């Protein structure tokens, strides 16, 4: 059994909570005491139906204001797969949360109300999903019961969305007509829509192929921690611990160390449970090398004929996430990229992107909370980078405010 991480985008009005509630309930991930608590609160508040959004809205302020503030993580499993849902709020001010939830997602579900069709927020969700390179996108056209399960309406929306998505470079795109409230095409195929030949949503989630989404071609091993036991038994042991970020490593492989550019061979790939014959993402392992090189945290191990860019000047799409400050040229920040932390200077803001229209505003002089733009950074020491489109782990970075220590930006190298 493997894990599928997916993000859901949409507002309560689109029936997102109802959909998640149904997936959790039908897979028995909601327990009786949780359901009782939700029913009790719904009753106390005079709500006529059981408000399933109470299951995911965990914080007091959220329940009081009836809004979702933050990304909530929910878990369920079927005999086929374990699922991690990053449930992100749909309002405009929460681009930050959507970006956060999408950063680790294998798949995103965008909910569209069949009556309303493709709205501004649907476009925004689609754009953010593709910006974050979520490999699989499912457009769940919900409330089909309210449009008489009409195939024409489904096709209309599909066409409109496909047209917009073609501008986005969206990868694997699927459309599923559903009614979250009545369960049509959620867990099992709906009898109300015989014209729909595709799988149910859950069937799709269970079977979508994700293993090949990881980069298994470019060997990237950011050194995280050097293990030196200082024990008699392992006197000369020196291992480089880390999580594989790309490619497949095997003992005997010739590898290159960056920044030195020196080459050596992998002597062994160690784990607590014994040596392994190969390592690939997302495995956490310890490499031993045949030659003694000066290697420390923040360095990179790759293949001599397939190296990341060694860059002190990078261009990236940056999503700004701070309430109190803005990103402007000359802003100094801390950058964390793989296991390397350095200082960065904003050299240039090329444009700000309108996430609804995709219009590029080249006159923009700053990025505020939830705004996205293309930025050039100069870094105090070289980073070992790939394009984000090629590898999310060696192409993504975070920006940290040096005064508050807050995480204020997320960047994707282009």
């Amino acid at each position, binding site marked *: 059994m493997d894990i599928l991480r997916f993000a859901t985008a949409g507002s309560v009005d689109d029936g997102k909570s109802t959909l998640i509630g149904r997936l959790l309930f039908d897979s028995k991930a909601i327990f009786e005491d949780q359901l009782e608590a939700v029913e009790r609160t719904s009753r106390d508040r005079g709500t006529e139906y059981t408000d399933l959004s109470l299951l995911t809205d965990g914080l007091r302020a959220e329940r009081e204001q009836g809004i979702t503030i933050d990304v909530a993580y929910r878990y369920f499993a079927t005999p086929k797969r*374990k699922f991690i849902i990053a449930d992100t709020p749909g309002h405009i001010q929460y681009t930050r949360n959507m970006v956060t939830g999408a950063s680790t997602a294998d798949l995103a579900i965008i909910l569209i109300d069949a009556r309303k069709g493709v709205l501004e927020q649907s476009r925004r969700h689609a754009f953010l999903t593709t910006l974050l390179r979520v490999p699989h996108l499912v457009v769940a056209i919900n409330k089909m019961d309210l449009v008489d399960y009409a195939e024409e309406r489904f096709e209309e929306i599909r066409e409109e969305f496909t047209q917009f998505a073609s501008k986005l470079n969206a990868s694997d795109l699927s459309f599923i007509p559903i009614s979250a409230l009545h369960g049509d095409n959620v867990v099992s195929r709906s009898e109300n829509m015989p014209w729909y030949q595709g799988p149910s949503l859950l069937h799709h989630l269970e079977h979508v192929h994700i293993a090949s989404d990881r980069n298994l071609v470019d060997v990237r091993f950011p050194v995280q921690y050097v293990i030196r036991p200082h024990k008699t038994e392992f006197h000369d042991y020196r291992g480089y611990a880390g999580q594989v970020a790309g490619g497949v490593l095997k003992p005997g492989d010739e590898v290159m160390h960056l920044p030195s550019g020196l080459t050596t061979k992998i002597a062994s790939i160690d784990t607590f449970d014994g040596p392994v014959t190969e390592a690939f993402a997302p495995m956490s392992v310890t490499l031993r090398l045949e030659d003694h090189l000066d290697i420390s945290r923040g360095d990179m191990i790759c293949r001599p004929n397939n190296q990341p860019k060694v860059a002190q000047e990078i261009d990236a799409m940056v999503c700004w996430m701070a309430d109190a400050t803005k990103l402007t040229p000359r802003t100094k920040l801390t950058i964390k990229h793989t296991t390397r932390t350095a200082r960065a200077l904003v050299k240039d803001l090329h444009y700000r992107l309108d996430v609804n229209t995709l219009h590029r505003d080249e006159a923009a002089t700053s990025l505020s909370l939830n705004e996205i733009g293309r930025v050039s950074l100069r870094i105090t020491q070289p980073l070992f980078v790939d394009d984000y489109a090629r590898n999310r782990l060696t192409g993504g970075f975070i920006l940290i405010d040096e005064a508050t220590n807050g995480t204020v930006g997320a960047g994707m190298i282009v």
Partner: protein
Amino acid sequence: MLQHDYTTSQLDVLEAEAIHIMREVAAEFERPCLLFSGGKDSIVMLRIAEKAFWPAPIPFPLMHVDTGHNFPEVIDYRDRRAAELGARLVVASVQDSIDAGRVVEETGRRASRNRLQTTTLLDGIEENEFDAVFGGARRDEEKARAKERVFSFRDDFGQWDPKNQRPELWNLYNAKIRKGEHIRVFPLSNWTELDVWDYIRREGIEIPSIYFAHTRRVFERDGMLLPEGDVVQRGDDEPLFEATVRYRTVGDMTCTGAVTSTAATVDEIIAEIAATRITERGATRADDRASEAAMEDRKKEGYF
């Protein structure tokens, strides 16, 4: 061509993620510690720490907040496991906090040291100058926890501000803090109760005996079975009876309920949990029943 499809099982993915988190902490903080109670989640966390740094020893001490109301079987296990690993164990004692006048013991039948632990924990963190504290909490446990970060920032009062959390993207964790502040780190954030048990089975890890079915003298309160014990205050209207029970969570004797069960092996426990329709905290924890936001309120103050 690739020879196989490189699928990774859910436990391997979760383990690799937790190892990555632990190594980040060891690399970026000066003085981390791992909260070890002898409960199943901290047992799994400790095994992962063992794996993350092998063949080197675990590069940080363990800390236990001892309420003085713990199950003796669990305290035995705690000491034995720490000794096996050669780990330093710091015990922060609630009794010491009471004796020092830092907190006042609750009185009455429902008196519990649960809430007092927060002061003892924060004092322990401050005295030892710990800047990162590993906890075994999981997001599936409780809805306030569902929104907590893997690296959860605490101010110099040890408080959590749920509305002002640092965004967390990819596998990049922000470890920046000022002196006096600390980070609570939850490597098992993405694990479920069933994952924890599947992992215990796969790894063949020993767990305290009270997790398995045994005969115990108990009484009923609020639909929970509480144990007979010196520290548990029982009313005359709460008669004792003998039952075959086991513990699904391990906390204080005063507020941790047993569940009726005949599960005597890890396999049987897994079968039982897979079939249950009640959450572990709902079934066994009086401390969470206080209000809708009981956990959120305690967490804001600095609770685990």
